[in-house]
C-alpha cells in the first residue's frame, strides 16, 4: 500500500511540475474548451427567456450556473484518450510501461490527477470571468459542496475506466476511430453535456440512469446546481461507487486477456 501511495504522490508531483511549465498552452487549451458550453448556455438562456423565464426548471441564471460548473467538470473528465491508447499500442510504446513492476494504468491515473491540480488552479480566474459576464445563480449548501468535491474525483475515475475500456479495443484492431466517434456522440447526449438531462425527453433521462455517462458528468453538476434532496445526493455517490467498483474489475479482467494480444518489440 505504501508503495502505491509513494508512487501516486511522486507521479502527481512530477505532473504538476511538468504542466506548470506551460501555463499559456494550458490556458489556450482551456479557452478553446469554453466555446462549447458558452454556446449551449446562450442558446438555452435565449429559449428560457422566450418561454417566460424558465425551461425545464432552469432560469437563465441557473443555466449559467450549470454551464460554468460544467467547465470544471469537463476538466475533471479529461483522461488518457482512446486515440492515445491506439498510438501507444500501434507504436509499441506500451513495452516500456510493461517493464515496470506496477500496472501501467496507475501511471495514467496519477499523471492526469496531478495535471488536474494545475487545471483547477488555472480554472478559477476563468470561472470568475464567466460569472462576471453571465451572472450565475448558485447557492450550494456545505453538504452539496462536499458531495460535489467527492463526485468530481469519482467522475474522473469513471471516465478513466470507460475510456480505458474503449482504448483497449485497439489491442485487437487499430481501425477504431468510428467506434470512438460513436461513443463520444452517445456521451454528448446521455451525459448532460449538451443540455441538462431534465430538458431531455423522458426516455433519454431513464436510459441515462443506467449508463456511465451521466455519473461521470451530469450528476456532479447537478449536486451543486440542481437542489437535489439529500437522499439523491447519496444515491448518486452510491451509483458512482458501483460503476467504479465493477468497472475496475472489468478493466483488470479484460486487460489480462488483451495483453496477450500485444506483440510489439522495443518501443
Amino acid at each position, binding site marked *: 500500500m505504501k508503495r502505491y501511495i509513494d508512487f501516486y504522490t511522486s507521479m502527481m508531483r512530477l505532473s504538476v511540475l511538468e504542466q506548470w511549465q506551460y501555463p499559456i498552452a494550458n490556458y*489556450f487549451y482551456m479557452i478553446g474548451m*469554453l466555446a462549447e458550453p458558452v454556446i449551449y448556455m*446562450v442558446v438555452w438562456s435565449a*429559449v428560457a427567456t422566450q418561454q417566460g423565464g424558465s*425551461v425545464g426548471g432552469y432560469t437563465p441564471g441557473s443555466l449559467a450556473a450549470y454551464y460554468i460548473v460544467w467547465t470544471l467538470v469537463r476538466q475533471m473528465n479529461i483522461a488518457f484518450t482512446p486515440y492515445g491508447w491506439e498510438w501507444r499500442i500501434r507504436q509499441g510504446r506500451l513495452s516500456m510501461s510493461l517493464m515496470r513492476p506496477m500496472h501501467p494504468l496507475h501511471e495514467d491515473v496519477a499523471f492526469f490527477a496531478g495535471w488536474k491540480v494545475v487545471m483547477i488552479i488555472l480554472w478559477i480566474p476563468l470561472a470568475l470571468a464567466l460569472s462576471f459576464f453571465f451572472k450565475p445563480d448558485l447557492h450550494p449548501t456545505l453538504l452539496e459542496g462536499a458531495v460535489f468535491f467527492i463526485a468530481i474525483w469519482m467522475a474522473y475515475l469513471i471516465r478513466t475506466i470507460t475510456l480505458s475500456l474503449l482504448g483497449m479495443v485497439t489491442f485487437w484492431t487499430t481501425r477504431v476511430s468510428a467506434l470512438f*466517434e460513436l461513443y463520444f*456522440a452517445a456521451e454528448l*447526449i446521455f451525459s448532460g453535456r449538451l443540455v441538462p438531462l431534465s430538458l431531455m425527453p423522458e426516455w433519454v433521462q431513464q436510459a441515462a440512469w443506467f449508463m456511465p455517462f451521466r455519473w461521470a458528468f451530469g450528476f456532479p453538476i447537478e449536486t451543486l446546481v440542481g437542489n437535489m434532496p439529500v437522499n439523491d445526493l447519496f444515491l448518486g455517490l452510491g451509483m458512482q461507487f458501483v460503476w467504479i467498483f465493477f468497472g475496475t474489475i472489468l478493466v483488470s479482467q479484460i486487460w489480462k486477456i488483451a495483453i496477450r494480444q500485444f506483440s510489439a518489440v522495443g518501443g
Partner: protein
Amino acid sequence: MQGFKLAFNYLRIGVMNEFQYRANLYIQILQTFIALGTGLIGLSLVFDQVDQLGGWGKADLLAVMGVFTIMGGVIRAAIQPNMERLMDEIREGTLDYALTKPADSQLLVSVREFRLWTLVDVVVGVVVLIIALNQLNWLVGGWSALGFFTALVMGALMIYCFWLIITSTAFWFVRVHEIANLFEGLYAAGRWPVNIYPNWLRYGLTFLVPVAFAVTVPASALTGRLTLQTWLGALALTVTLFTIARFIWKVGLRNYSGASA
C-alpha cells in the same frame, strides 16, 4: 493565370493522394452523419420548447446548419490542412523548400494540401440546405441566390485570411497549435445565427473570428434577411482582411531564418 494552373495541379495531386486511402471515405461519411445527427438533435430539443429563436424559425435554422456544414467542409478540405502544414514547416525550418520555388510564396503555401473526402461535408450540407429551402417553399429570387454565392465565397476567403494571420504568428511565437484548437471551438458558434449571442460575443464572432460572415450572412441571403449594407460590409472586410493577411505574411517571412536546410 499561372497561379491557377499551379493551384489546379496541386489539387490534382491532392485528389490522387486521397484515392490511395479509400477506406477513409467511409469513416468520413460516418463522422459527417454523427456531427449532423447531434446538430439536429440540438435543434429539435430547442424547437420542442419554442417556435423560433431570435427571430429565426425552424427551417431558417436548418438553412444555417446547412451553410455551417458546407463551410466546415471547405475549411477542413482546403484551408486547415494547408495552414497546419505551414505551422509545422515554420517550426521545423522546412519551409525553405517552398520558399525556394519560383512562385508566389503565399499562393504556394495555401494550395499544397487538399483533403477530398472531407467534401462529404459539403455534399451533405447542400442536401440539408435543399431540404431547408424546400420547407421555405423556395422563396429565393435571383438576387438572393447571387447574394448567397458571393457571400459564401467572401466568407471562405475571410476564414482563409483569418487562418493565415494566425498561422503567420508562428514566425514569432513558434507554438500556435493551441490557437488552431481555439478556432475549432469558436467556429462551432456558427451553428446558430450570431444575433442570439450577447453583444460582446457577437462583435467577436463578426470581426475577430469572421464566423458571422462565413455562416450567418450567406444563410441570411437565402432566408431573405440580407441587406445591401451587410453585403457591402462583407466585401469591405474581405478586402481589408486580405490586405492585412498579405502584409503580416510578408513581414513574417522577413522574420523567418530557416533552420538546418
